[in-house]
Each structure stands twice: as structure tokens, then as C-alpha cells.
């Protein structure tokens, strides 16, 4: 069970501009593992929506399949949600967005859901600059199917089965930049101070906004002997060759300033080095963003922050020049050309 608070616990009672309290943005109790990074991201989404005073029904939340893709149940109960099929959230979101351009579309996906089975749709949602927030809850593994390496897993990382990953990990932020995404950010699940504003920025961006959020998996990225007492548990797991014991963990949190770096210890005792872009970073300069990203990578750092934003972003609706009235609000009068027109067409076919 999760530490994400259910509706009746500690509601933040302050109403926002549209008259909602924070609890109005929450969802049902999470069924993710205690300490799962995904729950922290859900929390950040709740916070961001509350802060921007969004009416919850003005947002639609969509996902694929995976632990990450379950999270939309755990936030924004008053929003329509769609837990679709594995890897296909982008196409569903594209359609939904076409139907009604006036909602905010928040897509949630996992690294398996996005970087493997969903790669094609991910790439093409970017290409179409679909107006949506696309959050990847990136844990480098397949949580829900019990810990296989995902395509974003780092080269050489050790999976729960003890195998070293022989493949290079795909950098989703780098990929999005290469593909011309109009908004690319990266953050860490435990870094609320960075994540919440970034979600807010993404929601206000008129186009595709990728948020690649590193989100540690307590259960399956939990494979090194880190503490004394834990070793016993670990030995137990090895011996029974059943992943049937998940130690309860606290979610990892981190707080550091823009321009700084922070070393974060993951559940498995391994460490990652986060590096936050400086406060005066100019996110409209893509060329530099690409270079900074590659540079950080070669220094073994994970660069976080808003890497790039295209201020001239034109979304799919603009490209297609669709009408302002949402399609789902149109009826016969808007849409049906009528019998006279049809008779003209018939006439032309005689």
C-alpha cells in the first residue's frame, strides 16, 4: 500500500481560485508498493493541478499498462481516465485530443510502455506535436511484470535476476530533442520542488511536453545488499527464487538547488548523480540543450530540468487548422451537408 494519502486524510483545506481543495485532486488509495517513486509523481501531479487551479474535469488522464500506467486511478478522481493497452496511450490521446481540443491531456506511461512496445507511437506523437503532457515514470525496469530490464536501463546495470544489462539505455529526453519535441524536461520523482513547477509548465505548453521522470522501483531495483538487516531478506528471496517479498520502503526524496548536483542513493544502494540545470539556463536554445545532455551523460550525470522549450510551438490542431468548436460538441447542423448537396454529388456521378 502506498503512502499517498486517501481522500479523508489530512485534506489541505485551502481552496484554490476555482474553489477546490487539494483533496479534490486526489484519487483512490494507491495499490503500488510502499515507497514506489510513481506515487511521488502522482503526488506532484495532484499538487500541480491544485496550484494551477484547474477544474479537474477539464483534464483527461490517459495511460498504457504497467505500474506507472495504473497511477491515473490514484489522482484526479473527478477527471475522466483511460487505462488503455500496453504502449498505445499516445494514439488514444491523439484521438481524444482531436475530439475535444479544449481539455488538457495528461498521458502517463512507463519506460517499458514508452521505450519498448510504445516506441512507435511515442515518436509519432512527438512528430505531430500533439498538445499533451507526456510523463514517463522511468524506473529502468518492467515493474508490473516483475522486474525485467527495460530499454532505458543503463548499460551494465544489474537486474533482479542478477544479469548485467548488455544494451545501451535509450535516453528518452535526448530522443525527444532529436525528434524535434517542443518541450523536453527531466526530473526525479523525489524532487517535488522541481517536478511540480515542471508539470505546471508542461500543462501550459501548447504542444507535446515530455517529462522524463526518474522514478525508482523499490521492488525490482532493489538488488544490492545495502543494509545489514536487509541482507537476510535478500538471502531469503534468492533462496526461494520467488519475488514474493517486498520490503516496505519510504519513497526517496531529494531537494537541491538549480545549478547544483545531488547524489541520490537508490533502493538497491546504487547511486545516481542528478545535475540540475542552472537557473539562468536558456531553454529555448536546442543546440546547446543537446550538447549539455550528451556532455552530462558522458560525465555519468543525469541532467534534470527543463531542457528545451519551443516558444513558437504549433500543435496538431493548429497544423490541421481545425475549427475552434470542439468536434464532440458538433451535431447534424454542423456536420451534415444535407440532401441537396448529396443530390448534387449524385448528379455529378451520372
Amino acid at each position, binding site marked *: 500500500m502506498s503512502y499517498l494519502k486517501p481522500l479523508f486524510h489530512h485534506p489541505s483545506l485551502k481552496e484554490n481560485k476555482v474553489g477546490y481543495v487539494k483533496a479534490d485532486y486526489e484519487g483512490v488509495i494507491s495499490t503500488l508498493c510502499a515507497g514506489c517513486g510513481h506515487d511521488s509523481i502522482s503526488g506532484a501531479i495532484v499538487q500541480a493541478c491544485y496550484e494551477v487551479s484547474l477544474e479537474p474535469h477539464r483534464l483527461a488522464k490517459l495511460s498504457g499498462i504497467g505500474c506507472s500506467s495504473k497511477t491515473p486511478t490514484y489522482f484526479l478522481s473527478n477527471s475522466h481516465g*483511460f487505462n488503455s493497452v500496453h504502449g498505445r496511450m499516445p494514439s488514444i490521446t491523439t484521438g481524444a485530443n*482531436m475530439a475535444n481540443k479544449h481539455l488538457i491531456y495528461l498521458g502517463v506511461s512507463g519506460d517499458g510502455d514508452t521505450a519498448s512496445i510504445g516506441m512507435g507511437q511515442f515518436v509519432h506523437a512527438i512528430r505531430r506535436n500533439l498538445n499533451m503532457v507526456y510523463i514517463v515514470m522511468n524506473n529502468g525496469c518492467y515493474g508490473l511484470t516483475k522486474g525485467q530490464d527495460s530499454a532505458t536501463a543503463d548499460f551494465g546495470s544489474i537486474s533482479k535476476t542478477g544479469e548485467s544489462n548488455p544494451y545501451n539505455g535509450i535516453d528518452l529526453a535526448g530522443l525527444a530533442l532529436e525528434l524535434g519535441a517542443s518541450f523536453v524536461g527531466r526530473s526525479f520523482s523525489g524532487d517535488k520542488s522541481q517536478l511540480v513547477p515542471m508539470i505546471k509548465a508542461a500543462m501550459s505548453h501548447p504542444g507535446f511536453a515530455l517529462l522524463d521522470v526518474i522514478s525508482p522501483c523499490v521492488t525490482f531495483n532493489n538488488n544490492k545488499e545495502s543494509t545489514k538487516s536487509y541482507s537476510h531478506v535478500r538471502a531469503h528471496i534468492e533462496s526461494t527464487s520467488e519475488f514474493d517479498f517486498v520490503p516496505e520502503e519510504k519513497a526517496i526524496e531529494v531537494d537541491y538547488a538549480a545549478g547544483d548536483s545531488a547524489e541520490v542513493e537508490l533502493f538497491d544502494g546504487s547511486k545516481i548523480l542528478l545535475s540540475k540545470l542552472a537557473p539562468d539556463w536558456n531553454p529555448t536554445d536546442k543546440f546547446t540543450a543537446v550538447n549539455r545532455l550528451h556532455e552530462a551523460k558522458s560525465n555519468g550525470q543525469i541532467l534534470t530540468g527543463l531542457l528545451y522549450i519551443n516558444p513558437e510551438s504549433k500543435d496538431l490542431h493548429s497544423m490541421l487548422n481545425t*475549427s475552434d468548436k470542439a468536434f464532440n460538441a458538433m451535431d447534424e447542423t454542423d*456536420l451534415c451537408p444535407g440532401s441537396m448537396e448529396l443530390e448534387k454529388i*449524385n448528379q455529378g456521378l451520372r
Partner: protein
Amino acid sequence: MERKFVVNDMVIRFANVNGTGSASANDMFAKSIFRMGIPITPKNIFPSNIQGLPTWYEVRINGKGYLGRKAGIDILVGVNPQSFMRDVKSVKSGGYFIYDNSKPLHKEYIREDINYIGIPMIKLAMDNYPSARLQQLFKNIIYVGALATLIDADIDVIKSVISEQFEKKQKLIPPNFQALELGINYIKEHYDYPIDVKVEKANNVGDSILIDGNTACALGAIYAGATVMAWYPITPSTSVAKAYETYAKKLRIDKETGKKKYAFVQAEDELAAIGMVIGATWGGARAFTATSGPGVSLMNEFIGLSYFAEIPVVLINVQRGGPSTGMPTRSQQADLISSAYASHGDTKHVLLFPSNPAECFEMTAQAFDLADRLQTLIMVISDLDLGMNNHLSPPMKWDDERKYDRGKVFTEEQLENMTEKFGRYLDVDGDAIPYRTYPGTHPTKGSFFTRGTSHDEYAKYSELGEVYLRNVDRLADKWDTAKTMVPPPELYDVNDDKKSLGLVFFGTTTYAAVEAMDLLQEQNIAINSMRVKSFPFTKEVETFISEHDKIFVVEQNRDAQFRTLLINELETNPSKLIKVLNYDGTPITAQTIMSQIIGMLEPVPAELN
């Protein structure tokens, strides 16, 4: 001695090379015959390639209005040396072979029993047009002129067709006329004309139109208010998308703002295409896709989602020759089982079977109402023959009083006034169809979580057996509801009161089946016929099947898939359903149907008439 002419009853085949501009010339020829008031059936037989391979265009001209394919070619216009031998062989005894005699015909092509008509097409073209490109193009018009003269077609009609065709490029009209005259004059100067198969103006087409099924489907979608079309190119369904875009551009641009009341999205593949449709209809728009066999196979997972999460989808399935990539430019009806039961688990899908373009229009429009009403996927089952060839069809009709049936959707007001808890999958009124809401409808009521996992009446995830059962049993009940909503079959004049023999067909076998009924009648074989228009089968279909002793089921696939559907859904004893099959990729002929039936009746002649 007076010559005896066969009038308004022939098959003409053009043997061309694709990419040489012949298709438009041949089309203009066929259209001219149609304009003369004579029913025609044109068929394009083309390769899966862009340029340089043999391609045929066949027109059956039949005053009585039989529109099925007919074997036996009366006149062959053979302008493709690659297929010469095959073309010469294909002419029926006594028929005509029209060819380019700019070079002499090799003697291996000479058959004693047919007539040869040589025309120096390329020579005439070279003498009259400057560039190779133009020569190639106008060569086609030259043979049109020649052929028209030979069969006594009305030249003025042809000219008017040409003029219309080039209405917006007036300067193209004179050179086309010139080419036509070159052909006409060459015949007039060198041959006795008309030949003994000829056409005569008639009044047999009524208010019919000439249109391909794909265009009609696209128009149906536009009339039904489809605002999102998501698709991926694939023969033979691509032209549904193309036509949708063409007509949407004309009919769906907001006059004031110039903005589009439609979104036309070429997806990255078929999975994405149907995903977009699902997203769009979930969002409250009307949306559809069009594809063919390989695309439907790729859509299988999503099709299951639409069934289980109850999301309206309209899918135009323009079948081609399978399995696998198969024969992409040939026609079959071989995706019936894979459409009816697409996706894993217990799933069933509603199918509509149009048999001509007017029905393509109507059934596509109807599919949107059914999809919204039944909250499920509706497949319009067309095929390459229907979709890509022009057909003589009743005009498309739209009643301006007609309202879109958006099905059970709660509005903001309804939600506002609601006191009970909204249950997305709750059957509140016994038709097994629940209410839905569009995202963004109401600030605090009516939101729900759509999922492909097992769920309770309130859309909540559940792994409980009883919850699952309630849901899938309701879906089975919804299937029964569907039976009362889909179009009933067409029953043909009852010839056989004893109800011993029945004939069942659907879709593009209709043309040939209807003709076969007449042929059988001529042989004094009484048979009752039924054209099925939908799946699940309605009461009427069930009655027909149960009332007849021996039923011939005509279809265009190897495994008698439609027959399987009848057996499986109606619990019919297979022994009474007799297969009548044709699955070589060409449309079945009346002759084939008749001879297969007679062949299977022979052992028991006593039982007949």
C-alpha cells in the same frame, strides 16, 4: 441477308500497361456507355506495382442490368505486348481482338476463330503529337475512338464525357477530341463497322450513378458526422481515406473562418489508426478508420479493447486476397471469421455487408449510429471489387429529418439532476447497454475510468469472478440487443413454396447470385433466396435457414467462412448448408454459381421442381 447484331450485351477487355494513362481513357469509355443509358460493370484488374506491368480493364455491358462479372470476352483491346499471348487466348470464339498494327502481328498470336482489327495506334500518335509522353497518353484515346466506332457508340456522348473530364483544363479538350477522331476515322476508312456486337442507346439505368464503394463509404461517413478519420495507407482501402479528405475539404470547411470541421490523420500504422479512433469516440466525436486484412490483423488487440471497454468504433474493412500480404490487388471475402471474432477472449463483433455503393453509403452512416447505440465496434465489410471498382448503383440518399443517434450519453444537465450514483457499466433499463459520458462534461459527476481490465458496473477494477461474469454476460445480452438493431436480410421473390432449396449470399456475390437465380429459373430450378446484410444474424435469417432443407451459401473464400458463421451462430446442422465457393481473387460469376448448384443437385434430381 440482314446482319444479326448482339445488342447491349458484351464484355470488353482492355489489356494495358499500368502507369500509361490507360485507366482514365478506359473510364471515359465506360462512362460513355453508361451515359447512353446502358448498364455497365467496369472492373480494373491491376498489379501490385506502379508502372510497367500488365493491367486489365474489363467492362461488361448488359442491357438487362446484370452487373456481375461474366466470363468470356467479346472484344479485347490488346495494347500490351507483355500479355499478348494470354490476351489473344482469352477472347471467346467469334470475338474480336483489337491491336496496334504499327508493327505486324506475329503469327503465333493468330487464332482462326477470332477477328483481328489492327489500328496503327502508336503511328497515329507519333504523327500527331510531339513528345513520347503525349503520344503514350493519346494512344489511349485513339483506341477509344476506334472501339466506339466499331460498336456504334455515340460519339457525341463520348465527347461530352471528355469535355466534362477536362472542364477545368479546357485546353486539353481539343487534343483529346483530335485523338478520338483519329481512331474513329481510321476505323471508318479501313473497316466495315459496326461489328456484330454493338451498343444502342437505351433507357435502362434510371437514376443510377456510377461510383466506387470506397467513395460511397467516405461520403457516408461525412454525412454521418464523422469528424476524425485516422488511417494508414493500404490497398484497397486507401481510397476511402482519399475520398473522405477530398469531400471533407469541399463540404466541411467552416465558411466564415476557413477552419476545418474534421481532422484527417494519417497514422504511423494501423495500431495507431484504430487507437486514434478509440480515443476520439471516447472523447465524444464520431471517428472511423478504413483498412484491409493485414491492418485488421494488426488491430486485433485494440478491437478487443473496444469490445470489452465498450467504445464505439467504425471500421471499414475492404477485403483483399489473403492470407498474409496475399494478393493485394485481388478481391476476396475471406476475412469473415477473423472479423466476426477478432481478438482473444470471448469476443463478437457487429458486421454490415453492403453489396453496392448506395449501401456502402447507407451502411457506413448506419454504422455510426449502431456504434454509438451499441457502444461497440461495427465493421463495414466491403471488398476490393466493391470498394475500388465503379459500380452502377442507386443514388445515395439522405433524409434531412434524420438525426444522428448518439446512443446513451448523459449530458451535463442529466448528470446535474442525477441523484443515484452514475455507473458506466450499469444496465439501467434492460437492453444491456449502459450510459456513457464524454470527458469534460460535468465538474464533479459522471467521470469514470475506462479500462480493458475486468471491471464492475462503476468501472472499477475487479478480479472477482462474479463481477466478471455479470459484465461478460451483459455483453452477451447486448449481442442479443444488437440482433434487433442491425439491418434484416433482403428476401427475394419466393419461388419455392415447398422451401426445399435456399440460396444465401451477401456483399459482392449479390450481382452474380441475382443473375444466377434467373439462370436457375430458366432451368426450372426453384430456389428461394436471401441476401444477408448483417452479423449477428437477425430473426429473419434464422427463420430462412431453419425453414429450408438445403441451402446453398455463396461466398468468396476457401474455407466457407460465412457458412461457419451461420452454423455457429444459428446452431444449424452443417449438412444442410452447401458451399458454393470462388476464391481465386476474381469476382464470382452467375455461371459459376449455377453450375456448382446444378452439379450438387444432380444426384437427387427427383427432389427438384
